[in-house]
Every structure is written in structure tokens, then in C-alpha cells.
């Protein structure tokens, strides 16, 4: 039996949206891929290379984008959903450009918001130019412009883990999962280009959850001579030269540790985008961590409290690219089943 073509609206054109669009189109569905920015790719566009293989991010993105060149996929960039209503089991979406979309299912692939480090004032982000966040470091690496405030190659860089993650003072009890391995990846990248630069990672726990991550950690220590210090920095201040003075405890020794650095990089965690308008309009439930709540964490991960509304990727929990791609494909299958693809 040939199934009637169904229409699916995907909100968000990052890795999750791109991958789900490709999968659903491959299954014969018609997809609207709605992205608020001018280009697809989401946060992936901002990355230089990806752990654990250090494959260039652009290359991964281009490969993924080649899968959405499909007549069944209508890509709407620079587009935001202004209004969204559920009428029986159909969804009526209206974009800010006035286009109306009639969908049988909605896939939320809205990703995450980077934690705003200004909220941890004690680290001086937004106050001292020597304090940057992990995406700003990534941009430096991407543009081959790793510089301290004086425009020189930094003699020392400190990467501080867990900014906005595992921190009840900012209301985030959860671990953002990817920051540890991102720090290791970035530390290696700095050392690869500037072997003379000292690189330190200040961590609370090193969480290497994926395949070849632990090996990457070992490589950072062994091959690239990155130093790992177990202790959370409590505060930072700039001196007249723009150098950053940090205070931490070396918890493995049990002594306060003071150190100067050219750059302090804050490994910012992921937060749910609680202002997302479609989720608000439809009333998609969120969990205690404010990410979308799954109908069931084991068997219905991509389903929400609303039939016909699905989720994929980092809007459900902090997630890396690899897992996001797998998760998006799983969401595509879930939608396909919901639309009658498997009886």
C-alpha cells in the first residue's frame, strides 16, 4: 500500500532538524524545515572541529546539508513561527512572513541556548576582555586568531569547566555533558598550534562519556602536555596589564591555588530555550531542568505530552553532535510510525 504523503513541520534547522528532515524526506514525507537564522546549521556553524576525531565541523555540516537537497524538503530560513495552533490532529502554523503551513506533525529541533556567563559575575565575563567563553575560543580557533588582550599569542590559557552547569546558584543542577570533552578538544587544538602556550583545565569531575573520549583525554595529557587541575575557580580579577588572576583550590593537594593567565575560557553549558514560541503556543511540557520532557525516557524518548508533537536533539537534554544525529533519526522513525507508516 502506498502511504499518502504527510506534511511535517520541523522547527529549527540545526543538526537535529537537518538530519530529521533528510530522514523524513527519505521516508517519503513532505517537510518544512524552518530556521530563524539566514543559514542552516545552528551552533554547528560556529564550530571549528568536532571531538573525538577532530573532523572539521564545516565538512560534517556540508555532508549533512547535501542530504536536505530534496524536492520533498522546503527550507524556510530567516523564518520564525509567529503562531501555532492545534486543530484536532492537525497543526496550523503561521510564519512571521505570513506563510501558513498545515502540518500533520511537528518536530521540535530547537536546540539549546548557551549559558550566559555574565550571570557568573565573579569570573568577570563581560567585564575583563581576558575572560571569554568557549564559543569565543572556538571562533578564535576557526579564524586562526588565538590572541590575548594585547594581541599576542597567549602564554597561558585556562579552561574552566562547568560554567552554568552543576550549579544550583544559577538554577542548573544538571551536567551539560559535552563541555569536558570540548575543553579537552580545544586544549589540544591550542597546543597543536602553539606548543609553547601553557594550557590548564580546571575541572570538578572529568566526564568522558563517549567512545574515544577518554582516549582523547589521555592524548591531551600525554601528547599535548595539557595540565589538569581538580578544583573549581571561585573568582577572577584583572590586573593593570589585562592579565587575569584566578583563585582556586587544588583539591587534590588541599591548598588554595593562585595563578595568572592571559586568557580564562569559561566552558559554558547548555540551557533550554524557554522563550521558544511554538512550545509556548502548543503547551509542550518541560522537565525540572527546563528541557522538553519526554513521554518516556526509555521507550518514547522523542514523544512529548502532545500527540503529533515530537522532539529531537539538544532541546531534550544537553547532547553532542553524534547523539543528536542519532536522536534525530530516531525522531524521524517515531513520526513515521505516528503518521501510519507501520501498522
Amino acid at each position, binding site marked *: 500500500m502506498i502511504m499518502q504523503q504527510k506534511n511535517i513541520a520541523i522547527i529549527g534547522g540545526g543538526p537535529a532538524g537537518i538530519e530529521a528532515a533528510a530522514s523524513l524526506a527519505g521516508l517519503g514525507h513532505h517537510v518544512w524545515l524552518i530556521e530563524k537564522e539566514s543559514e542552516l546549521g545552528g551552533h554547528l556553524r560556529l564550530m571549528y572541529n568536532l571531538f573525538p576525531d577532530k573532523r572539521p565541523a564545516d565538512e560534517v555540516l556540508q555532508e549533512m546539508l547535501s542530504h536536505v537537497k530534496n524536492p520533498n524538503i522546503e527550507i524556510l530560513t530567516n523564518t520564525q513561527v509567529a503562531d501555532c495552533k492545534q486543530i484536532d490532529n492537525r497543526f496550523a502554523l503561521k510564519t512571521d512572513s505570513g506563510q501558513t503551513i498545515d502540518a500533520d506533525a511537528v518536530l521540535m529541533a530547537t536546540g539549546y541556548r548557551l549559558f550566559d556567563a555574565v550571570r557568573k559575575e565573579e569570573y568577570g565575563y563581560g567585564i575583563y576582555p581576558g575572560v571569554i567563553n568557549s564559543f569565543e575560543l572556538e571562533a578564535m580557533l576557526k579564524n586562526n586568531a588565538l590572541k590575548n588582550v594585547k594581541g599576542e599569542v597567549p602564554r597561558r590559557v585556562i579552561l574552566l569547566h562547568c560554567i552554568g552547569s552543576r550549579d544550583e546558584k544559577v*538554577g542548573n543542577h544538571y551536567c551539560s555533558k559535552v563541555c569536558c570533552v570540548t575543553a579537552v578538544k580545544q586544549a589540544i587544538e591550542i597546543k597543536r598550534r602553539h606548543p609553547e602556550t601553557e594550557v590548564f583545565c580546571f575541572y570538578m569531575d572529568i566526564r568522558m562519556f563517549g567512545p574515544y573520549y577518554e582516549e582523547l583525554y589521555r592524548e591531551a595529557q600525554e601528547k599535548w602536555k595539557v595540565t589538569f587541575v581538580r578544583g573549581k575557580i571561585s573568582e577572577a580579577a584583572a590586573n593593570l596589564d589585562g592579565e587575569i588572576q584566578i583563585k582556586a583550590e587544588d583539591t587534590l593537594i588541599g591548598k588554595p591555588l593562585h595563578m595568572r593567565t592571559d586568557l580564562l575560557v569559561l566552558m559554558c553549558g547548555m540551557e533550554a530555550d524557554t522563550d521558544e514560541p511554538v512550545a509556548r503556543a502548543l503547551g509542550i511540557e518541560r522537565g525540572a531542568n527546563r528541557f522538553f520532557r519526554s513521554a518516556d525516557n526509555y521507550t518514547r524518548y522523542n514523544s512529548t505530552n502532545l500527540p503529533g508533537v515530537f522532539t529531537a536533539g539538544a532541546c531534550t537534554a544537553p547532547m553532542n553532535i553524534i547523539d543528536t544525529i542519532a536522536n534525530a533519526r530516531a525522531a524521524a522513525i517515531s513520526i513515521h510510525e505516528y503518521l501510519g507508516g507501520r501498522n
Partner: protein
Amino acid sequence: MNPTPFDIFVLPFTVGMSLLFAYLILKYASWIWYFDRDDKLRILRGLFSLKSLKAVKEIFLESLVHRKMFLVNRRLGYMHFSLAFGWFLLIVIGAFEAHIYMGGAAPFYFPIFFVYFVPDDESFFFARGFVQLMDASLLLVLLGVVVAIIKRFYKRIVGMRSTTNLRLRDKMVLYSLWLIFPLRLFAESATCGLHGSGGFLTGTVGSLMAATLPLEAIEYPLWWAYSIDLCLFFIGLPFSRYMHIPTEMVLIFFRNWGIKLKPDNPILEEVMVLSCPRCGVCIDRCQLNTAVGNHDTQAVYFLQRIRNHEQHSAQAKNCLMCGRCESVCPVGIDLNAIRLRHRQNFTPETFVPQYNNADAQKVDVVFFTGCMGHLVPKTKDAMVKILNASGDRYWFMDADGGICCGRPMKLAGQTAAAQKLMDKNRQSIIESGARTLVTSCPICYKVFREDYNLEGIEILHHTEYIKRLIDSGKIKVDKKNLAVAYHDPCELGRGAGIYEPPRDVLGSVATLQTTANERKNSLCCGGSLANLTLPSADKARIAEQAMCSLTANHPDVVATACPLCKKTLARTQMAPVEDVAELVAEAMKE
């Protein structure tokens, strides 16, 4: 001269009243006895001075009219006013009536039972007038009793969300108090009904009673009941909350004579504890009640536990010391000081500070940011920018960290240890030769002002200092198009009385909004160092409550003047939070 009237039913009242008087005289004497020499001298000097007259005036205004309570809660104020003032009128007018009738001396039970002994004699001076005045006073009291009874069962009628909980003993005395005035009404009315006399109240009720009841049979038992009820109330009074009536008056005298609560003398605290009328005004003011749902630690309950010798160390520690209750307490009890007294001696005082401040620099102005200041670098940098622009020679005393001001230790009840920290800081400040000490932290500010003894050195909060710099033209600022709501830090506002300088400064750099809770009524941010036990999540609830009020008019920025308030309020993410100094630094002309 009339013959001295007597009937055996006056005995219960007479016995009860005599016992109460004896008890009170002993109690007052023992308090004075246990005061130290200085306080005894203060009493001697104050007794025949204007201070005593001021006390009498205060007693009239507060104990009788309940002026302050009216200001906080009109209906509750009315209830206390009509009970206290009405009863006072009954006593005073009754005494005049009885003494005029007797032409001089009358036994002290006589005015109380005057209507029984003199039911229809209108021959003496102003007799008809007295009858009507006495009825009017009785009516005033009875209306108060009605409100009190309704309040007990429907507390919202007096505009209270919570009222005090009572023990059995208090209940017995409470009921005997409620009964006094209805019994008096019915006893007097019965007599008036029998004699066809009485005023607008007792006369009317009397004729109604005469028409429906066998008055001859019930008149005498009613007077007995009235006398016995008075006796029960007087005997129960010292063991109930109504001890506040004879104690509050004494407290007002003591206070006017200049006696202060001291850590080492428990007497004034006892007087204060007994003075608490348990009106419960403090309960709805307390954010641990309204934001956290605690119904056990408010001042009225804490004092009740002290009074009843119940365990109260948890309550002593669980208090923000924001001063919201103290600022409205109708009796003016030093609630924070009492709380602090009960934090003493939790820990040994064997502390020897093994650290020193950086070497003092010779300057005009010492700047002390305080411990928490290091966690708000934006404020700290703003102050450095302002100080650099001021033209003053300054020393940033704790630029690389320094010794704590000592107030957090004091708040934890460790007075002697705190003193050692203060001595170290004091020495550094004096060595600098500075004439001005500026601090960013209201906690430090309060302790510098109150406990440091820095003669010849002016102590300024940074908002006061900045105001001077702007006023004298040392720094120039642009007024920005920015709507700001100001949060009064507890220690700076209620704690130190600094309400206007931060507002003046904000007025010159932004547009200041008014908020629902400001100045004396400002809400606590919850971050208070004074609360030793409050969990982090509860602090966040209090912060949200404060921010709800501050952001009601959608300001661009919530401004404050305390690093701890800033961090605590910013945590809510409900609006950007900045220190007054930051807004000034941003508005400064280069």
C-alpha cells in the same frame, strides 16, 4: 458622707486584685534590684525628670490609644484601642464617680461595683452625666470584645493573614477577659432594670431584661459572677500574655530613662518579652512566613518560647534580622537584639586571628569593599573608577582580600571573636591616617559605625560618598534614559537609616521608579548573613518575592547598594541587577 457600702461578693475581686498588686510590686522591685549600678543610677536620675513625663505621654499614646498599631493595621489597632482605652475610661470615670459620691475616700472595690451599691441615686454632682459616660465607655470596650472574638475565629476580619496560637492557660485567661465586660453589662443592667435607672445602654438592656427575666433572682448571682470573673482574670494575668499590660508601661519608663538591652543583663529582655502583647503584627511582616511558609520563628513565637522556657535555639538562628518586624512592633521591642542575645555562647571564644591586613598606606580615604565585594567585580571596578576620578588619595584596603569586618561573627553570636577582628581592621584604618572610610558593603558599614570607635574618621557608605562627589562636582554624570527600581538593603536602610543618598544618586543618573515596598517597608532579598540556617532554596524564594515587588513596574534595571543583595537578587534572573556605583560609573563623563 455616705456610709461605706459592702457586700460579701466584692471579696473575690478584692482578693484577686490585691494578689495581683502584690505580685506586680514584687516583680517591679526585683527587676530594678537586678539592674546593674549604671542602670539604677539612670532610674534615679530619670525618675523626677522630663523623661518620666515623656514616658507618661508615650504610655497614653501607645498603651491606650495604640497609635503605632493603628498605623500598621487600622482594624487591629481599633480592637486594641477600644479594649484598652475603653477600660481605662471605665476605671478613671468610675473612680471620679465613686469618689465624688463618697465625698472623698472610697474603698477600692467600690467604683467597680458602684451601680450595685448606688443604683438610682442622682443627687450627687454630675450623676446623670457619669451614668451616660460610663455606659459609653462600656460600649466602647464591648465593641472591642466583639472584634476580638470575631478575630479569634475569622482572623481576616482585622486584615491579618495569621494570628497567634494560644496555649490552654492563655485561653482560660482570654475567656475570662472576654466575659468581664458582658458580665458587667448584664449585672449593671439587671440592677438598673430593677430600679428603673441606668444610662442609654444599661437602662435599655435593663428594661429589656426586666420584661423577660426574673431579675430579683438573677441580679445578685450576676454580680457574684462578675466579681469572680475579675478575680480569675487578675490571678491568671501574671501567668498569661496579659502580663503585657502592666509590663509595657514599665518598659516605656525604663526606655525613656535610657536603659538599654545589654548582652550580659537579662532583665530588660525579660521586661521586653513580657511586654509583647502578641498582637501578631510581626507575623505577616515576616518573609519567612510569607515566602517560605514558616509559622514557628516569627518574633511573637520566639518571645513566647523564651517566656515559656521552651527550646528556642532553632528560632534564634532562623531569622533574617531584616528588621521588618522590629520596624512595626507597636511596643518597640528590640527584636533583633533579643534574637542576637540568644545566639551567644554557642561556641568557645578561644579565637586568635592568625592573619594580618596588608600594610597601611598614608591616604585621605580608605576604601573597604568587604568580603562579598570580591564576588561582584563589576561593582568593585566601578568603585575603583569613581575613586580614581574623585581626586582623593585613597587606599583600597582589601584589594587583595582582607580581614572580615567582624559583623558576620557578631551576627553568629561570637562577640569576643568579632572584637579581635575589629581591632585588627581598626588598627589598619587608623594607621592610614585617613579622615574618611568608604565601604561598599552595608554589613561592614553598620559595624564600622556602631562598633569600631573610629573617632575623627567619617564613615560613609559608597552611595553617600558618591552623592558628595556628584554634589561637589568632583565627578560629572549624565542622566540616562533608564528606568530604575531601587532595592533598599536591610542593613543600609532599616539597619542604618540610609534611605535617601542612594535615591539621590540614582536620580541624577537615571529615572527612579517608586515601588510597593520601599524604605522602611522594603523586602529582604533573603541573602542575609544573619540567618544561620536558612537553606539555599528558601533564600531563592525570598529573593523572588522581593524581585516580584521590584519589577512590578517593569524597570530596565533593579539597582541596589549591597554586594550580597545584588548576587541574591540577580540569581532570580527576573531583571538585570546593578549596584548604584555601576550605574554611576557608566554615566560618568570621561
